[in-house]
């Protein structure tokens, strides 16, 4: 290619930048020059070099067309103005950064948790299939293996998979550990659209027993136990004492749908025995399904409900059991969504407060610069030019605010994440990423444009002469009114936020005062996993229980030690149906009670009062008569008018295993402080030999301090017994409403920031108006007005602005109360005491913010004020 042709090609390429209407002439000019120059070119390279200028020329023409140069000039001017008054700039930027920063942080949270699709193929088509017990208000009952077979005929779903979540003990090396895992059918991974990153998935044959025991590891477990070594495939691992071959490793972040933060570390094949496959009573299996192509959720739901209704009439085991479908997206985020949305709403309001605050500041500055604007107008600046200048200025502020907000947001996010650690997925990275940055940039840009328009619309009225003649003190009425309205808006928003925070605070206080039915202080709890085949036989488990209790009871500082299969707030309920002797079940009635198997001194250890009858004794063992203690709720529900002591009940389908009721104990809140006690049965662990051990120790001093001693005591009996989930009882209870408390904390911080911003706004607005009115105040004082009257006048303005804002805020809270009602406990969204306290605090804020300007007004010297006029 000759230099001429190369240069012409460059010009042709550059021509794309030239506005269309100039392009033809432009290209003609450049090619003529190049042709002419080529005729007498001394250096051919120079021709190409010259043609590069065409790019600059073309870009210049394009930017001129966009009036970019004007905008660039405006932005440069705005930048210079911003740096000329660093104090003002800092104030505006900090206010904006605050509003934008918390929104960026919360957006990062929302984006990762609520907005991104779940990591499955076409996740909106995947549903959970739950059974229900409408009569007991249980809407999510796990199903039985029998239902896997039964539901296969449904036409509304194309794939069905079963999951049995559990915990497993890994042994075989020096650190036995307890991990979450699930037994799954081979259909699960194809249904979800996930697959191992290395190795293989399960085969349908592995749904049945008789196949070799295998396991698939999570990426995390693989890294932790094998250092991400691909040779782990084919190796064996001791899982619950059974040797299993590792056949695959899941990709990072691959997890089961369901409540977040319950990540699974082990994937095991179902390997069901014929007996398990036909079990229709054990409601411990979760089901997932994919909607059939073309089927809607409503159609499939209707089919499932109709099918369940038919089953309820056909199978005694399924009497009064319904079924429903819940999309996995809803299931996954349901627990945390209300909190997140509330927080998002509250930081949105904070951004509004910050924006109103910034507008106030910018308006105040604009009226200080009326001279400058008037001069510009007189010199021929058009309305458009002034708007462009105003927008450029506010864009500079908004960009600086957005940038600072992004840093602030990163910091805020790191502070917030630990608060929700219990309810957020561990594997999803939550950070300030490109999406969050784009979001931040977008709100900054919108705010910048908005502020510019607001300021430009409040341009001073009247011509140059009017403005220059004015002493610079009187303000145009519209700008003063706008400032007043902005202050009122900020106060109203702050009152809404403060009310929401107050209501949440009220709930948390009430929650922490709920009596759970036992004494939670000075109790340490931990679980012990029975591993290996040492404890397969019932007597060995009973012996282990008494050995553990003896060792633990001997630790200095321990008052009582007890065992229960499940302790309150320890997760799991273990509900089972029961029958009362001599009282056949009515058709459609399902009698259910939570089952706990405890050592004799459990009630003393937990301080659960005995209502009547007797507690368990050491003699209630496998040789003695089978006995049971029930709680007050169960007694009230089934023997409302009689004494249940000495009556007999049977649990589940065990034939002839009648249990004699020997006592009634007080109700205990087991799952959460917000839920009333359920019906419960306690049985002596010496008679049931249950393989689940949770130990509870009542101590004299700090319970957490005894953890090492308790660990040592367990290891002394069997060094292979892992102890896990070690927590004090108070910790467990606090954890049960951690999310409510975290939400409350964030709301409180947001509301406090909003209150501070509105306090500053009240102060700034009153100070400004006092400054404007100094001559008037001077005249009043000269005419004999008392200083107290002037002081009162100024303060009255602060209080009246605030009162209007507070009224609007209270009205807003009353109107929007139901949005928060679901997160409250024992507190009405219209709680008058909370609202009154918020209003009182806000009025106090107004007085504090008004005092300094009021004092300034009081101390005006009439002579100086009038001389300046």
């Amino acid at each position: 290619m000759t230099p001429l042709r190369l240069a012409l090609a460059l010009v042709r390429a550059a021509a794309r930048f030239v506005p269309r209407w100039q392009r033809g002439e432009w290209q003609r000019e450049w090619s003529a020059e190049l042709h002419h120059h080529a005729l007498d070119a001394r250096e051919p390279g120079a021709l190409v070099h010259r043609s590069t200028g065409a790019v600059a020329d073309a870009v210049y023409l394009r930017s001129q067309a966009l009036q970019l140069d004007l905008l660039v000039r405006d932005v440069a001017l705005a930048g210079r103005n911003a740096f000329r008054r660093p104090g003002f700039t800092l104030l505006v930027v900090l206010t904006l950064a605050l509003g934008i920063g918390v929104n960026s942080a919360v957006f990062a949270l929302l984006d990762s948790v609520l907005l991104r699709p779940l990591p499955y193929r076409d996740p909106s088509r995947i549903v959970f299939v739950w059974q229900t017990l409408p009569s007991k208000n249980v809407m999510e009952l796990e199903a039985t293996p029998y239902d896997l077979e039964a539901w296969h005929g449904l036409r509304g779903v194309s794939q069905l998979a079963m999951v049995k979540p559990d915990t497993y003990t890994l042994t075989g090396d020096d650190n036995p550990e307890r991990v979450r895992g699930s037994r799954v059918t081979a259909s699960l991974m194809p249904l979800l659209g996930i697959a191992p990153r290395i190795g293989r998935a399960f085969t349908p044959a592995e749904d049945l027993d008789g196949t070799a025991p295998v396991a698939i590891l999570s990426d995390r477990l693989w890294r932790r136990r094998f250092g991400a070594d691909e040779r782990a495939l084919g190796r064996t691992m001791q899982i619950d004492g059974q040797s299993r071959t590792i056949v695959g490793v899941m990709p990072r972040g691959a997890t089961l749908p369901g409540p977040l933060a319950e990540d699974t570390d082990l994937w095991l094949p179902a390997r069901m025995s014929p007996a398990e496959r036909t079990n229709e009573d054990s409601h411990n299996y979760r089901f997932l399904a994919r909607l059939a192509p073309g089927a809607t959720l409503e159609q499939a739901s209707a089919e499932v409900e109709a099918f369940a209704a038919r089953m309820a009439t056909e199978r005694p085991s399924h009497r009064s059991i319904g079924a429903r479908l819940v999309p996995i997206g809803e299931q996954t985020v349901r627990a945390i969504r209300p909190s997140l949305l509330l927080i998002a709403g509250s930081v949105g309001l904070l951004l509004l407060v910050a924006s109103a605050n910034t507008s106030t500041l910018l308006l105040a500055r604009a009226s200080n610069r009326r001279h400058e604007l008037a001069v510009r107008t007189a010199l021929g600046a058009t309305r458009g030019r002034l708007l462009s200048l105003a927008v450029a200025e506010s864009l500079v502020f908004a960009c600086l605010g957005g940038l600072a907000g992004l840093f602030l947001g990163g910091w805020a996010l790191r502070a917030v994440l630990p608060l929700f650690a219990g309810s957020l997925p561990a594997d999803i990275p939550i950070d300030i990423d490109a999406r969050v940055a784009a979001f931040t940039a977008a709100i900054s840009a919108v705010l910048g444009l908005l502020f510019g328009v607001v300021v430009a619309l409040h341009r001073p009225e009247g011509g140059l002469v009017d403005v220059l003649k004015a002493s610079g003190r009187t303000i145009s009425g519209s700008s003063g009114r706008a400032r007043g309205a902005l202050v009122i808006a900020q106060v109203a928003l702050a009152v809404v936020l403060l009310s929401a925070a107050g209501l949440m605070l009220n709930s948390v206080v009430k929650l922490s005062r709920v009596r759970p039915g036992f004494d939670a202080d000075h109790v340490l709890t931990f679980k012990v996993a029975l591993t290996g085949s040492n404890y397969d036989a019932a007597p060995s488990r009973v012996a282990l229980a008494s050995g553990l209790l003896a060792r633990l009871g001997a630790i200095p500082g321990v008052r009582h030690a007890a065992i229960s299969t499940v302790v309150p707030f320890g997760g799991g309920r273990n509900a089972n149906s029961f029958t009362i002797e001599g009282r056949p079940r009515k058709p459609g009635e399902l009698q259910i009670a939570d089952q706990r198997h405890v050592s004799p001194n459990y009630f003393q250890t937990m301080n659960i009062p005995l209502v009547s009858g007797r507690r368990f004794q050491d003699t209630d063992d496998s040789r003695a008569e089978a006995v049971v203690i029930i709680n007050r709720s169960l007694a009230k529900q089934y023997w409302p008018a009689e004494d249940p002591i000495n009556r007999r009940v049977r649990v589940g389908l065990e034939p002839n295993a009648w249990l004699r009721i020997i006592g009634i104990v007080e109700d205990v809140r087991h799952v959460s402080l917000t839920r009333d006690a359920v019906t419960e049965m306690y049985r002596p662990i010496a008679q049931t030999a249950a393989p689940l051990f949770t130990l509870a120790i009542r101590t004299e001093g700090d319970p957490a301090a005894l953890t090492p001693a308790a660990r040592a005591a367990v290891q002394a009996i069997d060094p292979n017994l892992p102890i896990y989930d070690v927590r004090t009882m108070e910790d467990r209870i606090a954890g049960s409403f951690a999310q409510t408390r975290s939400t409350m904390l964030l709301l409180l911080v947001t509301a406090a920031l909003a209150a501070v911003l509105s306090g500053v706004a009240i102060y700034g607005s009153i100070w400004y108006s006092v400054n404007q009115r100094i001559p008037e105040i001077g005249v009043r004082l000269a005419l004999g007005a008392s200083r107290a009257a002037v002081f009162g006048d100024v303060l009255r303005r602060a209080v009246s602005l605030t009162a209007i804002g507070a009224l609007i805020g209270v009205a807003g809270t009353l109107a929007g109360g139901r949005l928060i009602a679901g997160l409250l406990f024992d507190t009405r969204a219209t709680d008058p005491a909370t609202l009154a306290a918020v209003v009182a605090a806000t009025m106090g804020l107004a007085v504090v913010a008004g005092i300094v300007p009021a004092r300034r007004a009081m101390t005006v010297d009439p002579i100086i004020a009038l001389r300046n006029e």
Partner: protein
Amino acid sequence: MRMTLATTLVMQAIGAGHCHGFDIVDVTGFPTGTVYPALRRLERDGYVRSRWEAERTANREGRPARRYYELTATGVRALDGALHTLRQLDAASRLRPGTAE
């Protein structure tokens, strides 16, 4: 319009009869990327105007017609003003601090 050194020199070159783009580049020593945008600005603000040379002249020399630039009356006045300022600056630069008695 702001008179920079580049715009002043471009105008001076045109005033001196160098009226085609590349000729101005040769005379002023500025690259095309500076000269052309300066020309666009000058033309937009009415300091120079451009015309196309007659096709016949160009054809006779076996090349396409070129665009040529000339100063407007405003341009001439602006150039005079700018040169005046430059001369004053030049004079000022000859003053040395401390030489005045």
